[in-house]
């Protein structure tokens, strides 16, 4: 099978699965499950063959007109006038890496869902939703131009809506899915404008051709990368559009793992890396991106401290880590002056070389995060299933003995996210911290503080959930989950142990990982010490401070801080609620009133009055006689003609 065929299989198999389920299997959950899981297995096989099959040349440079992908497929999908929209595949190392992440996490989540959703009445809808998501996400990964990316970007938004809304009899789920889609649309508003602007500036939105044009000196206005960044702010839930992600936890837990932790929310970062040249051309825009990421990272970490719902802690932690990735991207490249070289006119000019890119650091963290966060979410799903859908950590406790596999794998996930040496999070976080230290000390200090907080809130949750004694009926009767749920946990736990796969990935996706900033010499020592110290301080403080008890120690001991943090978390939601209910709704009602009474009423009656003024039978109008319409017609013609000619003169 040629690489192009494999790429098309990854795209079309999930689509076929979704279509079959939607059309024929709405009432047969088991059959739908079999089809969806089989489709995902086939998908994963094709994706891994494609990504590790050497079907692309490992060249980093993008020369004008050079296409660095062996997979080459592009179809004109619509053309009108001089506008052509094509659907095509750009399969380079970046896309291959993302595809592998989606495939592995996707398969784990599908298998986990077999157990987790066993008793669900709407399994067919659920598995159909997963398939349509896999299709849409793959479209984003493979897209070779921005219009195509936007198409699939919207489709993942739809699948996210569908899956958050899974428990649709619940008001919370209905509200959360609506909020997620609308907030994403706000981001897409900017994204779409950015894409259209790109089309007019570059004459194309093809990723390769745009890079070539920028390399060839095409100017980029600051507003273009910023508009495109709006898309990432929405999809990757950056402050201030982060509000939808914690609410999205209303969806089934495997969905949170796949969509709202590992893949879809990371699509924003992937998209940024896809169009990195546009950002590289505008340093001011990169700066905005960096601060958006830094603020989100810190803000979300602060919010996570007071959460009592196990999924909400993980949701805020996801936000914080996404902030890390966005910040890494915004920090830009490490450029060093490595001496002099002869320039064109014979004089010596300084030679700058790139020692690592922000995009690579972001993608590295995206990769490690995808695995350990999927692990954590699926672990929490296992806990929730074990505790009969109890999500409050203060009602858990003592689960380490009752759910040993979940406990061990979850612990590995926690250690990975807090940056324990030799686990995956350690490497990727260090590379971001090094990049920050090199490029921006302010960002470095905030990100370091965030790392302390991360260790703090993760260990807090871990301790309260798993240690101590069982504090509720549900928790004391908890049992280890079935094999379909524990197997994905074990697989993902292996992937959270960094050195298991990093060398393999490094070789396979050299185009990405070769650019990861790596500290050397003194810088290396500083970063190593900082990151270990950070982890020990955060984790140690949480272990010492929190008791595995039925109440939040922070609320009991330092209520002031707890209140402040709670307010911090709630303020954006309050602001949005105020806007929606007080401003937007009232504005809409006001316009509605004006429309009904001013336009519908006054103008019509005013015209009727005018007719009466001319003595042309206003009374006839009100009784609806047919003659009146004729008068109306003449009046109208005269009025509009007068307006037109008067206007023209």
């Amino acid at each position, binding site marked *: 099978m040629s690489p192009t065929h494999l790429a098309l299989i990854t795209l079309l198999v999930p689509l076929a699965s979704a279509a079959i389920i939607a059309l024929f299997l709405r009432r047969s959950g088991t059959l739908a499950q079999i089809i969806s899981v089989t489709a995902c297995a086939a998908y994963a096989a094709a994706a891994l063959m494609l990504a590790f099959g050497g079907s692309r040349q490992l060249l980093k440079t993008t020369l004008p007109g050079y296409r660095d992908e062996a997979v080459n497929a592009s179809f004109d*999908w*619509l*053309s*009108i*006038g*001089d*506008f052509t*929209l094509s659907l095509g595949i750009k399969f380079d190392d970046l896309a291959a890496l993302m595809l592998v992440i989606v495939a592995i996490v996707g398969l784990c989540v599908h298998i986990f869902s077999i157990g987790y959703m066993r008793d669900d009445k709407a399994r067919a809808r659920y598995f159909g939703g997963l398939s349509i998501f896999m299709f849409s996400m793959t479209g984003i990964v493979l897209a070779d131009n921005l*219009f195509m990316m*936007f*198409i699939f970007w*919207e*489709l993942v938004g*739809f699948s996210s809506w569908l899956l958050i*809304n899974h428990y*649709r*009899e*619940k008001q919370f789920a209905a*509200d959360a*899915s609506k909020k997620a*889609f*609308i907030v994403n*649309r*706000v981001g897409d*508003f900017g994204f*779409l*404008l950015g894409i*259209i*602007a790109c*089309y007019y*500036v570059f*004459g194309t939105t093809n990723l390769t051709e745009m890079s070539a044009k920028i390399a060839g000196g*095409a*100017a*980029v206005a600051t*507003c*273009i990368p910023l508009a495109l960044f709006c898309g990432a702010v929405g999809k990757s839930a950056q402050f201030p559009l982060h509000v939808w992600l914690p609410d999205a936890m209303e969806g089934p837990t495997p969905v949170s793992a796949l969509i709202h932790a590992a893949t879809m929310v990371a699509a924003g970062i992937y998209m940024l890396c896809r169009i990195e040249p546009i950002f590289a051309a505008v340093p001011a825009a990169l700066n905005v991106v960096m601060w958006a990421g830094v603020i989100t990272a810190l803000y979300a970490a602060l919010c996570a401290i007071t959460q009592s719902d196990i999924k909400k802690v993980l949701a805020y932690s996801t936000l914080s880590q996404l902030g890390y990735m966005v910040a890494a991207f915004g920090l830009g490249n490490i450029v060093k002056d490595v001496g002099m070289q002869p320039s064109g006119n014979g004089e010596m000019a300084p030679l700058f070389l790139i020692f690592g890119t922000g995009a690579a650091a972001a993608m590295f963290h995206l990769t490690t995060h995808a695995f350990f966060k999927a692990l954590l979410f699926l672990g929490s799903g296992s806990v929730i299933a074990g505790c009969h859908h109890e999500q409050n950590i203060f009602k858990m406790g003592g689960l380490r003995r009752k759910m040993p596999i979940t406990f061990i794998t979850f612990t590995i996930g926690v250690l990975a996210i807090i940056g324990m040496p030799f686990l995956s999070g350690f490497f990727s976080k260090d590379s971001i911290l090094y990049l920050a230290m090199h490029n921006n000390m302010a960002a470095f200090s905030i990100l370091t503080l965030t790392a302390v907080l991360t260790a703090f809130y993760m260990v807090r949750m871990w301790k309260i959930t798993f240690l101590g004694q069982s504090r509720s009926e549900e928790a004391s009767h908890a049992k280890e989950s079935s094999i379909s749920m524990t197997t994905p946990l074990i697989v993902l736990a292996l992937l959270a142990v960094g050195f298991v796969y990093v060398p393999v990935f490094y070789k396979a996706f050299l185009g990405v990982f070769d650019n990861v900033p790596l500290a050397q010499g003194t810088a290396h020592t500083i970063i190593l010490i900082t990151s270990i110290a950070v982890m020990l301080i955060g984790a140690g403080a949480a272990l010492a401070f929190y008791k595995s008890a039925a109440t939040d120690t922070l609320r009991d001991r330092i209520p002031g801080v707890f209140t402040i943090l709670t307010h911090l978390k709630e303020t954006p939601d309050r602001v949005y609620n105020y806007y929606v209910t007080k401003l*937007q*709704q009232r*504005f*809409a*009602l006001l*316009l*509605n009133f004006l*429309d009904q009474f001013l*336009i*519908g009423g006054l103008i*019509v009656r005013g015209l009727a009055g005018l007719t009466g003024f001319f003595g042309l039978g206003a009374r006839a109008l009100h009784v609806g006689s047919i003659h009146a*319409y004729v008068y*109306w*017609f003449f009046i*109208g*013609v005269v009025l*509009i*003609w007068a*307006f*037109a*000619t008067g*206007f*023209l003169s």
Partner: protein
Amino acid sequence: MNPFPIDLLLLSIATPLAAALIIAFGPSRKIAMILAYIGFSVPALVAIYLVGKFAGMPLHHGYAYFTSYDLGLAAWGIKLTLGLNGISLGLFALAGIVGFAAGFYAIQSGAERLRQYLLLLLVMQGGLMGVFASVDIFFFYFFHEFALIATFIMVGVWGGRDRNYAAMMMTIYLTLGAMLSLAGLIAIYWTSGAANFDLIALRDAIASQPLSEVVQKNIFGILMFGFGILVSLFPLHSWAPLGYGAAPSSAAMLHAGVLKKFGLYGLVQIALPLIPSGAAHWSHILAILALCNVVIIGFVTIAQTDLKQMIGYSSVMHMGYAFLGVAAMSALGAGGVVLMMIAHGLSVALLFLLSTSIHHRTQTFDMASMGGLAKQAPLLSALFVAAIFASIGLPGFANFWGELTIFVALWGFSKWMTIAAVAGIIISAIYGLRAAARIFFGPPTETFAKIAAENPVTDLRWSERVPAFVLLAALVLVGVWPKIVTTPLNAQLTGLSGMGDSPMSMAADAQNTGGSPVPPNPSRSAPAK
């Protein structure tokens, strides 16, 4: 070429009219229903067949399936001239498909005085097929009136709440709009000096001797307001939500879905190619009014609590996009208008159909007293959600292509207007998803729980499923494979169909001379700002 011994275009117009004529003689209810099935099926089948056969058809001045009949009016320059070009092809198919869905639904609706209702609906259907098949602008107008008068009667007799007031408002507004349009069309004919009303003759006459600037400006102004009223251009839209709120569902489906497109079709097919300078002159005013449709009416839609009013207003809002496509003055913009018309026609018809289905189950259109309907009627909820996502422009449905192409075209006309127009995707998501959530999700409201306890709610019946599936299938087909519309459309718009000057190249020339900003060709333009 044509394996059938008859002219299929004429057949598609005559069958519903003939069926209506026979029903007028008062056959039994059962025979009337059979006749109605025939009357609605034949145009749909003909339309699908003709779309399939269009590629490679010999073209007569851009028109395939060209025929001309002398009905004795030739002395006045009027002949029944039929044909389809790239612009009218898709709309002709739209009329066939929506007509089938609306007709099928009406036949099964069990309405009072069903025979009379079907008779009027068949008249409307015949008129609709005629509008888009006519090459002669007299008949183009004539068929429209045919369909329009049937609409008025249906609203007045079979309408819901406030039907008399709604019918009167609709009649006043739409008659005024239609008469202004007629004045504009006659003015074109008069000033062009063409020998007859046939669009080809008009085009030839104007090509040899273009109309003067002043004449063009005056005529376009009249047409813009005349057609504008018919398509609910802001602030002349008040009839639409009111009328659709009261209209019986099949009439609302056919009017909002198809007949309303008459005005936009006239602008794209007649006004833009024939009086491009006039269009260029008015384009800014048109664009600003259209933006009011999108933004102001968008917010008004958010405020609606009545489902049918909400759909009516959302339809007004989406017509704003279509007008923006006209105002963009480019082939892409005009193509976007046609895509938008087809997509909106299908989706709004589906929404009206399903809203009636919802009403059957909830006994109300008030969205505040529904909730949780998805539990009892999952298929209804799935279809309604699909229709909502289609109408808010989710990729995979036809509407996405309409919106996207119009946005891209509009950027070449005005950047800030594009920003305002794209904001519409947020507004429509708000009202669309809010409606879906209120009706179908969450726990049922007390009111609805009481109603549901009294009349057990069932999912869609087959008589509701068939038309809904037909409409949804068409939306997805164009959404997934837009070329089915755009290939013939693009050939027509860019003048590859052997019809001399392409309308849009003329429009662009007119803009260059008319002093309005030139839409930049993306491949050549300088960096923005």
